[in-house]
């Protein structure tokens, strides 16, 4: 046990005596959280502005506008056609969304019911198009539901559709009252960024920490360790424990600092402890797997960073997954970050450890696979 502790303390000391560690462990994630938290924040000035022309003017088009309004990072200015063109000319909006006359009929006939015009080369246009398509799909679903309901109730489907809209508003109202009564802190953009960037930078720090394995192998330290009366199991446990504790200290500090600086409420402490522990096992396993597959520190940095940044993008660290295409949302199920974010989101929204068993079990499965690869490939010489 003394030898395990000796290796563990040495690696922790080596990490925390490097000033650059603090930049990577704390300064960078806090900076990214602040930046992205405000980019997708609630403030009107940071949102994307779109001009909205409602040619239909029916209760259905108004409901569609309400649905769009739920997206807090896009704001709409309802104007007529001329007003919209003026706003585009003055570059005050990113595009014009037009709800065509006969909106409901067009939807029923599967013909385009909305149009979106944007300046050439607009960087936000693909994301907005994705958003509008999702809203249209949602409206399509309501029509289908209304038509099925109408066939049972012998009413015309437009009436049923109207009833559905009202029912939805009532449910939403109840949900808001429930949240306020329970005094649960909701999942806002700052808590989203805090969780996302904490995960990503813990992964990056772990990449550098597990680089100790490559460094020790290349410097002859592993060979020397094997000439001491330490067993291979003791050596491996010493390293794994040190990586885990480095990650744990970093995550704990990030939770503390984001709470103090950005007011993020992370939710149930027990759930948080279990989720962070599972995530760290997964991240340590991934770091060890990479360290045992590559041969040099340079390879490890290149492969590791590529893997972490790409999976962070896929897993919804930078932006919410509901703005990406459906196939990418499916891919996100195969990266640990999306499950970790799912777990943190639930905790922030008031869940307890029992409610986040799914993300925990999936992360645990990732951890088992990564640790198996990492531990089975450790070569000391």
């Amino acid at each position, binding site marked *: 046990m*003394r*030898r395990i502790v*000796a*290796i563990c303390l*040495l690696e922790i*000391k*080596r990490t925390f*005596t*490097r000033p650059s560690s603090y930049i990577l462990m704390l300064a960078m994630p806090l900076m990214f959280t602040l930046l992205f938290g405000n980019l997708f924040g609630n403030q009107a000035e940071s949102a994307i502005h779109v001009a909205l022309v409602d040619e239909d003017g029916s209760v259905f088009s108004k409901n569609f506008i309400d649905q769009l309004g739920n997206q807090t990072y896009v704001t709409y200015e309802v104007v007529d056609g001329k007003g919209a063109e003026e706003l585009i000319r003055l570059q005050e909006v990113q595009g014009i969304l037009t709800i065509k006359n006969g909106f409901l009929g067009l939807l029923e006939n599967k013909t385009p019911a909305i149009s979106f015009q944007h300046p050439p080369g607009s960087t936000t246009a693909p994301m907005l198009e994705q958003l509008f398509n999702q809203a249209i799909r949602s409206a399509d679903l309501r029509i289908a539901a209304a038509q099925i309901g109408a066939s049972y109730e012998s009413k015309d489907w437009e009436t049923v559709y109207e009833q559905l809209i009202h029912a939805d508003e009532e449910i939403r109202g109840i949900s808001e009252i429930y949240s306020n009564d329970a005094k649960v802190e909701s999942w806002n953009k700052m808590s989203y960024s805090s969780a996302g960037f904490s995960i990503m930078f813990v992964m990056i720090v772990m990449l550098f920490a597990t680089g100790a394995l490559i460094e020790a192998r290349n*410097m*002859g*330290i592993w*060979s*020397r*360790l*094997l*000439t*001491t*009366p*330490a*067993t291979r199991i003791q050596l491996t446990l010493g390293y794994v424990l040190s990586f885990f504790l480095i990650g744990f200290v970093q995550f704990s500090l990030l939770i503390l600092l984001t709470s103090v600086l950005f007011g993020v409420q992370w939710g149930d402490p027990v759930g948080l402890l279990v989720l962070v522990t599972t995530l760290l096992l997964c991240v340590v396993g991934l770091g060890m797997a990479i360290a045992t597959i590559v041969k040099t520190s340079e390879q490890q940095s290149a492969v590791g960073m590529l893997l972490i940044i790409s999976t962070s993008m896929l897993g919804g660290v930078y932006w919410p997954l509901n703005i990406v295409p459906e196939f990418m949302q499916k891919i996100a199920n195969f990266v640990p970050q999306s499950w970790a974010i799912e777990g943190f989101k639930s905790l922030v929204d008031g869940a307890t450890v029992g409610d986040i068993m799914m993300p925990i079990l999936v992360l645990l499965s990732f951890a088992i696979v990564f640790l198996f690869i990492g531990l089975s490939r450790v070569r000391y*010489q």
Partner: protein
Amino acid sequence: MLTMTQVKKCYGDQEVVKGVTLHVGRGEAFGLLGPNGAGKSTTISMICGLVPYDEGDIQVDGLSVNRSPYEIKKKIGVVPQDIALYPTLSALDNLLFWGKMYGLKGAEAKNRALEVLETVGLAERGKDRIETFSGGMKRRINIGAALLHRPELLIMDEPTVGIDPQSRHHILETVKNLNEQGMTIIYTSHYMEEVEFLCKRIAIMDHGQVIASGSTQELCKRLAGGNQLLLDVEEAGPAFVDKLKQLEGVEKVVSPQQSEIHLYVKQGQDMMASIVSIASEEAVKIRQIKLKEADLETLFLQMTGRSLRD
């Protein structure tokens, strides 16, 4: 202290150690020599328990390396050729860490680390980071890390590579003192003068086998022929070299270049006149003749056909 009996090691189809038998007595300083690829490092790795041997047996203080590796590791200190230290930590922190890996506890580890810093002559630099040290100082700490647990057997693999003469002298003096205090030393080096200074007995390895072993004086006399004559000539033809080989008392003639001939002889003084006479017959002009006592360098060259630093 160390007994190796018919030890063999194969990597795939290649047999890299071919039945090595060696004995090193307690308190002895023993030199292990051989050119690169001779099997020295594999032999040392097998003694340390880093590499398992396929056949034969290695015993350290009566314990078999394959059967009791952890008991044996407590008795052995290994100084690797690499500087296996953490550069961003201080010398004292490095020594404390290695002490703990050898099983020393808190205060004991610290006291030993301070003692070892004294032994290697770096007591005043204990708090400085290794990366600020010169090559020689790093080597001294590298040796110190193997001394913390007071090993009975110290195995040193080229411990003086790439360092200044002053540090080399300090290291050799330290190792000599340790040996005089009763520590058994196994020493490998490319520097013959170091082996001659430290070791009373040596073994020469080549192609995975021990091709000679014994005391340095005995081997020099028995194998090298006693003296070496170095001839510096102008354009020596094959007839001249053939005639030299036929001279009575000449053990071996090596001609690395056309202008350079090495003769291994029993009594160099007595041969001079005969060599000058043959040169005169063959019209070969001799620029210089040097008489040299046989040493490990000549012995090694004669045994392996290669210089030790090739």
